[in-house]
């Protein structure tokens, strides 16, 4: 029907932001924090990276030769991590220290984060004085998109397996590592205990606040990387306002879809990535309207999976028991 060799790399590229977002959110939720601010965090992560890259490119006078490849990667990466970390801290201060309602805090963070991204994105666009409403950081993007040297020479298999930038491989490694840590280590055990029953964890001497802060901040940083990948790799370094769209919400949906398992998240992200862009590959002739209906697919599939998991109602597949609730020791 269509060319899989073209389709699959597009799917993978599409899935990486979702994968990073959902892995980050899974870690966060395991600590009992339902962070609906992830869409905002991903915007902030992306724009922070863009600002860093923009400033560095300009300090080098815009010539790709003058740029040190290591710094070209490190500066946006660090900016992105710091930006998302700050968002994570904000969320934690409000929900963990101040025990605010998590849903409301998350939504406010999304409003703020998306606004933050679009504001600075828009300001940068204005600074460059370009005619199109976007900025292109192609020099930085080229470094982010550098593939393994032998990728081009290995034919179809190489194209399918080796044609991605380093962040794509990092995403998979992060997800696998997160799955391992959550399931098989003491830290993971304690983290799950905090999310399931903070009173129990507290009585066992686990520092609830520390775990919630750490899990949420790390989760936000991972999710922020998803935003960075989107701009630097998927979008070829082009930032345009609102282009990231609703991927942040899809990432949250993926967490439930994967029943809180980052390893399943890898496969599920591929699936969602595929569904997300399927409409581009289904021939609909001149009828553009039908394409809009195909774009529903990932959401409809999420709903169906949601219904099926709730019908099966297996104890192990439920969200962390204290998800969404704040913990106050003297209230037990």
């Amino acid at each position: 029907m269509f060319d899989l060799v073209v389709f699959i790399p597009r799917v993978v590229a599409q899935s990486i932001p979702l994968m990073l977002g959902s892995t980050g959110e899974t870690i966060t939720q395991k600590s009992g924090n339902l962070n609906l601010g992830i869409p905002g965090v991903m915007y902030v992560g992306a724009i922070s990276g863009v600002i860093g890259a923009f400033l560095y490119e300009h300090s080098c006078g815009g010539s790709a030769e003058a740029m040190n490849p290591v710094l070209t990667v490190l500066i946006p990466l660090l900016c992105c991590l710091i930006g998302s970390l700050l968002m994570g801290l904000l969320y934690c201060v409000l929900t963990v220290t101040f025990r605010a309602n998590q849903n409301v805090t998350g939504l406010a963070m999304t409003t703020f984060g998306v606004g933050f991204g679009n504001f600075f994105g828009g300001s940068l666009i204005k600074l460059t004085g370009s005619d199109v409403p976007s900025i292109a950081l192609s020099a930085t993007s080229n470094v982010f998109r550098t593939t393994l040297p032998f990728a081009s020479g290995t034919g179809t298999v190489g194209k399918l397996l080796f044609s991605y930038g380093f962040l794509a491989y990092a995403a998979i490694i992060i997800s696998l590592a997160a799955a391992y840590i959550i399931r098989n280590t003491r830290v993971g055990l304690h983290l799950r205990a905090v999310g399931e029953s903070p009173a129990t964890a507290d009585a066992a001497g686990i520092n609830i606040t520390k775990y919630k802060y750490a899990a949420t901040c790390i989760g936000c940083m991972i999710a922020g990387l998803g935003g960075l990948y989107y701009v630097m790799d998927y979008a070829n370094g082009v930032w345009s306002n609102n282009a990231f769209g609703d991927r942040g919400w899809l990432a949250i949906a993926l967490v439930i879809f994967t029943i809180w398992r980052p390893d399943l998240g890898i496969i599920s992200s591929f699936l969602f990535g595929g569904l997300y862009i399927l409409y581009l590959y289904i021939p609909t002739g001149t009828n553009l309207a039908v394409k809009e209906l195909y774009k529903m697919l990932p959401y409809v599939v999420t709903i169906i999976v949601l219904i099926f998991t709730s019908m099966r109602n297996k104890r192990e597949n439920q969200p962390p028991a204290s998800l969404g609730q704040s913990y106050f020791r003297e209230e037990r």
Partner: protein
Amino acid sequence: MDNTIPAVALRGITKTFGSVVANDHVNLDIRKGEILALLGENGSGKTTLMNMLSGIYYPDEGQIFINGEEVTIQSPKDAFRYGIGMIHQHFKLVDVFTATENIILGLEEKGRLDRAAASKKIQEICDLYGFQIDPQRKIYQMSVSQKQTVEIVKALYRGADILILDEPTAVLTPQETEKLFAVLRNMRADGKTIIIITHKLHEVQELSDRVAVLRKGSYVGEMMTRDTNPQEMTNMMVGRQVTLNINRPEPVNPKPRIEIKGLTVTSPEGVLKLDHIYFDIRAGEILGIAGISGCGQKELLEAIAGLQRVESGQILYINDDGKAEDLVGRDPLEIQHMGVALSFVPEDRLGMGLVGNMDLSDNMMLRSFRDGRSVFTNRKQPHDLAEKVVEELEVNTPNLSTPVRRLSGGNVQKVLVGREIASSPKVLLTAYAVRGLDINSSYTIYDLLNQQKQAGVAVVYVGEDLDVLLELADRIVVLCGGRVSGIVDGRTADKNEVGMMMTELGGSERIRAMEGEGLA
């Protein structure tokens, strides 16, 4: 033995919450290798005192000595370091974890997480004291008594020498209680020190070496268990002479009110909960229902009240004119209007029947808010009812607009039972009405039930304390694994006989299977 250093010595311990003094200069010695029973009414400060030993609260004043050394205990971790482990009334366990994972939770051992090694060590502890648990099993699949075992093993795994148990038998059956006591005696033989908080005086006599009594936050006195008796202990707790006998007036003109014929109930998972049971409930008497946890009492009451789907069988409601109507298939509201009231006190006391965040009037309205055709609620009548209940049952509350969540357990239960009685029912179903109550409050409830009985109401009483059942009920239906294993006369029945009937009937396998379902 008296001249050795005590395992724990408390000196002048004081703790206040706001303006309320929970403990007032308490002095208490606990000797090595003894079982000490700590007695006191609700609110007498027993749990608070023990929480200071286990690191949950920090005393405002006073000193704690462990084996003669003064120590400061600021957290549960500190308590573990001094070998103190506390088993709380509400278990601190993670439901989706296995027993092993719960037991090793929070321990900072070196090296990677080795569940297999931990399981082995747990098994060794179990073998030593005679516990029976499967370390691989998830907590949500366990019965209440198994969960409690996990808690005790958790304390021992951390090297506890001093074990505090807060009302450990409140949720156990007589058989499970026996098992627990056997294990505790093994532990005492092994040199462990045990403090047990309880309301049940016969257990104090059966198990403990020594008794200490608290009243209103102050230490009242202590004595050797063998030198005292329930009457003396009660008087010390309450601070005045109390009669310990439950009234049992003769049944008034008993006649069948509900006939249960071949009632069968299965859970949504397809497990048989009630298996063809037959008996009748009579007006003017108290019918007790005995059985171990998960034997089908809850399903039985819920089936009568219309809250359970009935597989087969009939529940016939006999009207005053002798006409019988089947309750099966009717919705709860209709059954309620026919005069069947259910007051079920769940483990958390508030989960069923009351809304914690609503005030007394609004809670009174739960039963009656639908009355009348108006789309709006009538607030006057529930307000009056709340006033009446508060006055007649002596509910201790600042005012009627206090959320019931803020009332103490006894008062919550009075509100619940009071509301059910206020609907002047023909049938009053009560389950665990005295759960966790002290002696005074319990007697208030017994009196209420007796009044209802004398007014010709058919009262069904499901209780966990067999002694009370035998003193209160006119007849007792014994359930075992979802079947009726016998119906006995409350005045002549023998405790051991009833205890046997609760576990016999060749249903032991099924009971185990049902426990596996995680009924608790």
